[in-house]
């Protein structure tokens, strides 16, 4: 490839600007397996002790595996609810002659832009009242509900690109409306479903404020809350341990992203072709 400008000045400039970020990532990893004397920047010994949370439960904390399982259940359940409701609601809003359609569309838009934090006290009171405070189910329902506007909106956009004739042809071929949706329309928007699923899972995996307020108990704690509690604890301040848990927390996300990055891109590409 030839270019009409020299590329090394650009690369140098970008390199200089990026160095702080790169250093942070490097030290995030290096610090988890080494010890560094105070005041020095060069580590003086290797150690595995910062990863001790993997084989012993830290005092006053839940087991890391309980927290990981909770996070996984939380993210997966949220994703399933979001997918189930978005894929049907999006279709209804895109195709069916539902009453108050315009109102729903506008409402979904407003909800999408609504800042979650403003609702949190009301949600807390409601969960407390119906007995779902400090349960995974409660926080899953809340998170799914808040993710839904985005999901419905995205799915509606994808359904809009499916040709009307395909559905009419399905009806003529004798299929019921539900069969048409399941066998003919849904496969056309599969890329959107995949992408939305991954997005929801990542959003659930990284969610912090909702579990912190609505499910802080050790039994139902998720990784983000577990992690935050580590630095909130002034008596046992351990920066290297915090970084190790952080790396442990982020690895599944990176693996997932490597697997699915192509699918993730398609959510902004729109629709499928043949």
């Amino acid at each position, binding site marked *: 490839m030839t270019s009409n400008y020299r590329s090394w000045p650009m690369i140098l400039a970008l390199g200089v600007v990026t160095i702080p970020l790169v250093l942070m990532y490097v030290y995030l990893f290096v610090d988890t397996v080494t010890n560094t004397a105070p005041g020095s920047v060069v580590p003086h010994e290797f150690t595995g002790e910062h990863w001790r949370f993997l084989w012993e439960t830290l005092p006053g904390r839940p087991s890391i595996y309980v927290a990981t399982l909770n996070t996984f259940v939380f993210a997966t359940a949220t994703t399933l609810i979001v997918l189930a409701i978005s894929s049907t609601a999006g279709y209804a809003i895109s195709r069916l002659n539902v009453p108050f359609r315009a109102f729903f569309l506008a409402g979904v838009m407003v909800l999408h832009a609504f800042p979650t934090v403003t609702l949190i006290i009301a949600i807390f009171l409601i969960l407390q009242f119906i007995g779902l405070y400090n349960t995974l189910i409660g926080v899953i329902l809340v998170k799914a509900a808040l993710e839904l506007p985005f999901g419905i909106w995205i799915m509606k956009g994808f359904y809009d690109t499916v*040709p009307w*004739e*395909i559905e*009419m*042809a*399905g*009806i*003529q*071929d*004798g*299929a*019921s409306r539900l*069969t048409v949706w399941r066998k*003919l329309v849904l*496969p*056309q928007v599969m890329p959107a479903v995949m992408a939305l699923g991954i997005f929801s899972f990542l959003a659930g995996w990284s969610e912090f404020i909702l579990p912190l307020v609505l499910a802080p108990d050790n039994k139902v704690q998720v990784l983000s809350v577990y992690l935050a509690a580590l630095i909130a604890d002034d008596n046992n301040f351990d920066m290297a341990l915090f970084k190790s848990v952080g790396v442990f927390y982020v690895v599944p996300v990176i693996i997932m992203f490597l697997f699915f990055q192509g699918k993730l891109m398609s959510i902004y590409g729109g629709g*499928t*072709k*043949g």
Partner: protein
Amino acid sequence: MRILLEKFTKSFGSLTVIDEMDLEIDDGEMVALLGPSGCGKSTTLFAICGIHRVSGGRILFGDRDVSSVPSQQRNVGVVFQSYALYPHLTVAQNIGFPLMIRKESNADIARKVDEIAELVHIGNLLERRPAQLSGGQQQRVALARALVRKPDVLLLDEPLANLDAKLRLEMRSEIRRIQRETGITAVLVTHDQVEAMSMCDRIAIMNEGRIVQIAEPMEMYDNPASDFVAGFLGNPPIAFVDGVVTNGRFATASGAMTVSLPFNAGERERKIRLGIRPEFFRPGGTQPVAGKITFVEAQGRETLYDVALEDGQILRSIQTATNAATVGEKVNWGIDVERILMFDEDGARL
């Protein structure tokens, strides 16, 4: 299966698109609904297949009233203009879809798909996906899918509109062949008079939600009921000349053209409109008319001329491509007066 539309009415909100239309299509017949955009031909088609609910009147298949039967239970095969193939399924799965919905056994489906694929000549394409097919092949798949469950009626909505000229010619005769071989009752919606004339047993020509005339193609060409029908059928189109007739003598307002007509409306002057098809205005025609050639279109075997009369009205002439008349040349060609079509002021045939 005979199709009968009785006082079929369709309105969208307060707008009545089709008002009390009657149409009977015989068993095994292929009828074209022909008309300009917005004349209600597609609306009629969608009412027959059940996508649109009828607002009034009845639709019968045979003796069965299907007016309020949902699409799924009407047993109508439809070929859409865009073919509407299912992009995620193979050709075989596309064709087999209606059978799969009926929960027929896999062996039955495979056998029937093979049979119908043989009929429409796509036996070697069954494992492909629609995106890997040409337009003509997609069309054949759409036909096969519409026919595979032996529908009572086959509906074709502008089936050739998306094909290039050569394929269109080929598919025209293919669709007709398949319709004849299966003996299915078929309705073709088109705005192309050539398609309608070449493919169908009868043509129902529509305008503004009404059937203006229904007849066999040549009958309609020779004896159009109105100037609208005459203007719609024929390519190149018929030329109209307005004027008055007195004592069997026709003259345009400026006197640029006068001919005697085999028609006597009496002494009184009467406004009429003549329709002259291009093939009946030529050198050696019975009644000469003077004009100047304003346009020449060589079509290979034939040449089309536009001839302007002195007052600017245009006659068209189509001739075997031997006469080398050029633009600007003054000519004195003749009209075959016994083939002239005459219409009154409102456009009705005299």
